[in-house]
């Protein structure tokens, strides 16, 4: 699957294209398919999100999993500060990144 991601303009938060809007949670991301680049361009022009770009991901029972470790870290948060990730209560959340 192909996802569109970027950073929210005002907060800098990592965000994922849901098909209609942006979400901080990769679980909400939708497969943008062939339209991914066009969505990134349109969203760049709308100036709500910084440098939206397209990534490859796989579909898993736990939701989309980016192909590259950098985007998995972006999706979760720093592996060295579980308390600052999107899943602070899950001590094993970092395993998803690796």
């Amino acid at each position: 699957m192909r996802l569109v991601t970027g950073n929210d303009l005002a907060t800098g938060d990592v965000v994922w294209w849901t098909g209609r809007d942006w979400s901080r949670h990769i679980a909400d991301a939708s497969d943008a398919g062939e339209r991914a680049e066009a969505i990134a361009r349109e969203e760049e022009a709308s100036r709500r999100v910084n440098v939206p770009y397209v990534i490859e991901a796989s579909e898993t029972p736990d939701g989309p999993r980016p192909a590259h470790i950098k985007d998995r870290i972006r999706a979760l948060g720093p592996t060295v500060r579980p308390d600052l990730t999107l899943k602070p209560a899950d001590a094993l959340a970092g395993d998803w990144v690796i």
Partner: protein
Amino acid sequence: MYKYDEYDQSIVDARVEEFRDQCQRRLSGELSEDQFKPLRLMNGLYLQLHAYMLRVAVPYGTLNARQMRMLAHVARKYDRGYGHFTTRQNIQYNWIKLEDAADILAELATVEMHAIQTSGNCIRNISSDQFAGAAADEVTDPRPFAELLRQWSTFHPEFTYLPRKFKIAVIAAEEDRAVMRLHDIGLQLLERDGVLGAKVFVGGGMGRTPMIAPEIKDFIPADQLMSYLEACLRVYNRYGRRDNIYKARIKILIHELGADKYRAEVEEEFAQVRQLGIDPPAAELARISAMFAAPAFAADGGSVADRSDPDFAVWLDQNVRAHKQSGHAIVTISLKPIGGIPGDASAEQIDVMADLAERYSFDELRVTHAQNIVLPHVRIADLKAVWEALAEAGLADANLDLISDIIACPGLDYCALANARSIPLAQKIGQRFADLDRQRDLGELKLKISGCINACGHHHAGHIGILGVDRKGTENYQLLLGGSGAEDVSLGKITGPGFDEDGVVDAIERVTDTYVRIRETGERFVDTYRRVGMQPFKEAIYG
């Protein structure tokens, strides 16, 4: 400590308001990211993996308790309760919101701080010896010169759009505690025939093409230093490459021109520049120097009466250095707890360090390039109280210059440029060598980790260096041996094929085991490496 005059303050205040307007125009959609990016970078605001990152300048690493408390306040109010001290003596915050950025800079300006010269292709924050003004071996305090350079370089109209960023370090001792030879310009202040001046090294740097700066000028009198540096920069600005970012640093120019040709060009330019009268009058240097006058040291700083607590005794031996003033000592606070994040400090810890500086160190702190904090002027009689307060705050690790005193860049956990994570590796190495007796037996061993070729973690200059690379989408680590950023400067060499995270920790242990086996009396790791070369270590690593 330098105190802003009305010009300094008005420059910083005006800059804050200018940036506030720029941020508002970006938030309203008036500016695109392409338009805004160079503006935010000129104010230290980066966009990293998880959020905006703000890098705040700590000129030549010196700050007072009030400024330190402001750093804690920013961490608490605008970030997530901590800051990260960097290898350029600055601090950065990883979770900044664009909508807060101008307010943060406005608050920083109230304590004479800013984020100018922490990014962009300008002359960056001037770095210096963290023991300046306290070290027994310095010929003069380098900070007045660093401050002069700060004033000269701030918004210098010719040097705001250099081919690439430009880093200057100033020291005034034979012992190089500032990695001076690995800067674009390194200045070593010294006296010759009763005249104060500087030896000038140009064209050093790390990054993808590490180079040790060659000596370009054996001695330039202090009253001509500014003109000489202006000439050095002008030649770079004229001939430095702008067509290829990877070849744009001055080290490449000097490598391609040759040091002799570059020197000749600078001399020719210098002859012109000297006529311009840009060197400040002696009275201006005296005015600035007066602000760095030594504090009113106690006539009797006392002595350490009681070393009976073994943890305190080890900390004294490891983290406390001799001071130029009898009865006083220099304390380095390690920000490298075992299993911790190198250079990180919580807002509470930053406040504790500010309090200790105010109470015990004449209101002065220093940030070191090794991501630690220094209390430069502590009465010896106060060392026990300082240690106890540090221990209570989790800041009393006695590992200065040992294998767990690791420099590590933020790596792939935070940095948009990184290829691999640095911090987890630092944590694993720290845990593997957690036994302090073992660390002390290994002695001085500087281990430095970078998560990409840009070398923010100084891996080229580590006795043991590690470079994280991306190998087909997975993290891989190259091991280097034999580097040094000190006066015995050298560049590390890659041992061979890289490792995964656990593999590189094992490899390091095989390296240190080999060192212990073959070292001669009094040899540090790097001395042994230089004596025997790579081969015994390579055999131990790869079999």
